[in-house]
């Protein structure tokens, strides 16, 4: 039993330098692994380098966070900013001129606390961030989860509310902040964050903290404006959610704008068709449903509504054709289409 011990000691005595060298090597290797694992910043798409090199939306207001209330603060910051005109052509774009609407003085971080803060959780949750924006006549569009999309929105004049985990996944420190600027050369972002008016953070560090929320973020727009770069599905969902709260009339301008911004988005035309129908604009409604079927011929529900509107317009042949199409297509609405066809 006592044998291995002296032998080991001997080995130590024989080559203390070897052991030290091994230790140094090991530490070096560990450090190298750690550093190489995170030394490279997130890779950007080539198209992102076509954006202005430096952007800062300086007239985004700042509402410093109090206690745990970064949710209300970030939301107040974003709600009180009216996006300026789009300056994409400029090579280097300085801060936009102060323009746009007056601030809604009643929207402050403090006033948003009872609307979006959950005392028992000492924080705010994502669905309520979107819902509270909705209450203030803004449509919240979740952004694509990439740094490229984030930078493009800022270049377009839209500050992006982001959720980060500033700490590690095991001890999360969830945080909302607003990205208001970036510098492609320096690879850094500028955020309104917590109590800091201009929080500069490298792409790498930011992306590490943002990735922990699955890169969650959103931009706000008034009805009738569609930020570019939003996925068709998310855009339709956001407007539909807004419509559910404020009524179909309040969403009409957004549907119009969306069909122009995304002409191939079949559900956008569908939504517009329903909005026109609500206003008794039957011809326009039929045209919108027609376009929905043109954009996606397999959208059974659009054929169904097209048929029903045509029936109301007295265009029986067209109604029958559309309803037959809807009855053919395998969808949840097949049954309804068949019934409508029988009673035509």
């Amino acid at each position, binding site marked *: 039993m006592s044998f291995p011990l002296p032998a080991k000691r001997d080995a130590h005595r024989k080559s203390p330098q070897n052991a030290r060298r091994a230790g140094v090597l090991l530490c070096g290797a560990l450090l190298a692994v750690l*550093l190489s694992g995170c030394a490279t910043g997130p890779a950007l798409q080539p198209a992102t380098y076509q954006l202005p090199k430096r952007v800062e939306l300086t007239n985004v207001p700042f509402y410093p*966070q109090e*206690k*745990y209330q*970064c949710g209300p603060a970030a939301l107040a910051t974003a709600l009180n900013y009216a996006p300026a005109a789009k300056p994409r052509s400029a090579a280097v774009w300085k801060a936009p001129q102060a323009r746009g609407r007056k601030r809604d003085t009643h929207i402050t971080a403090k006033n948003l606390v*009872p*609307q*979006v803060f*959950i*005392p*028992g*959780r*000492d*924080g*705010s*949750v*994502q*669905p*309520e961030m*979107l*819902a*509270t924006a909705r*209450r203030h006549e803004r449509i919240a569009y979740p952004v694509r989860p990439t740094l490229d999309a984030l930078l493009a929105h800022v270049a377009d004049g839209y500050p992006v509310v982001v*959720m980060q*985990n*500033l*700490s*590690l996944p095991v*001890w*999360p*420190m*969830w945080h*909302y902040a607003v990205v208001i600027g970036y510098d492609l050369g320096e690879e850094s972002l500028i955020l309104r964050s*917590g109590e800091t008016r201009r929080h500069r953070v*490298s792409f790498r*560090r930011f992306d*590490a*903290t943002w990735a922990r929320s699955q890169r969650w973020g959103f931009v706000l727009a008034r009805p009738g404006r569609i930020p570019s770069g939003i996925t068709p599905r998310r855009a*339709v*969902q956001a407007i*539909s*959610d807004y419509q*559910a*709260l404020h009524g179909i009339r309040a969403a009409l301008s957004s549907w119009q704008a969306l069909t122009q911004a995304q002409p191939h988005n079949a*559900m956008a035309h569908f*939504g517009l*068709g*329903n909005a026109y*129908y609500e206003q008794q604009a039957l011809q326009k409604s039929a045209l919108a449903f027609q376009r929905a079927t043109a954009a996606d011929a397999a959208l059974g*529900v659009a054929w*169904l*509504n097209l048929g*029903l509107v045509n029936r109301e317009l007295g265009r029986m042949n067209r109604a029958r054709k559309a309803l037959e199409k809807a009855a053919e297509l395998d*969808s*949840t*609405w097949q049954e*309804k289409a068949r*019934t*409508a066809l029988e*009673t035509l």
Partner: protein
Amino acid sequence: MPYFRRYVAVLLIAVLSLGALPVGAAQTAGLVSTQSALQADTASSDRQRINDVLARADVQKQLLAQGVSVDQVKNRVAALSDAEAKQMAERLDAMPSGAGVVGALFAVFVILLVTDILGLTDVFPFTR
């Protein structure tokens, strides 16, 4: 609270099945709404509506328990979309809530300091 749910469910079934009589005839004339077209993949619309209402009642209850004031909770729940209400009803406790404060102990401090310096986290402003 299960009594509450059951009560609401029974009430809803009654209301919806009564409402279905006149609506059933009118429905063939009415268009399919954008909202229900988007939800088309989820089961029957009546059952869906009951679930939506129950989810909202659930969220309201949870928010009240978490200290949200009584006069605010109705508007807050009303502003949620059906999908958001469902999400919150199912997993509000597990949802990350942005607070901007770390709830960790001192031992963690050192680790976070190192990760901050390595650029993996953004906890301490003085590391840059």
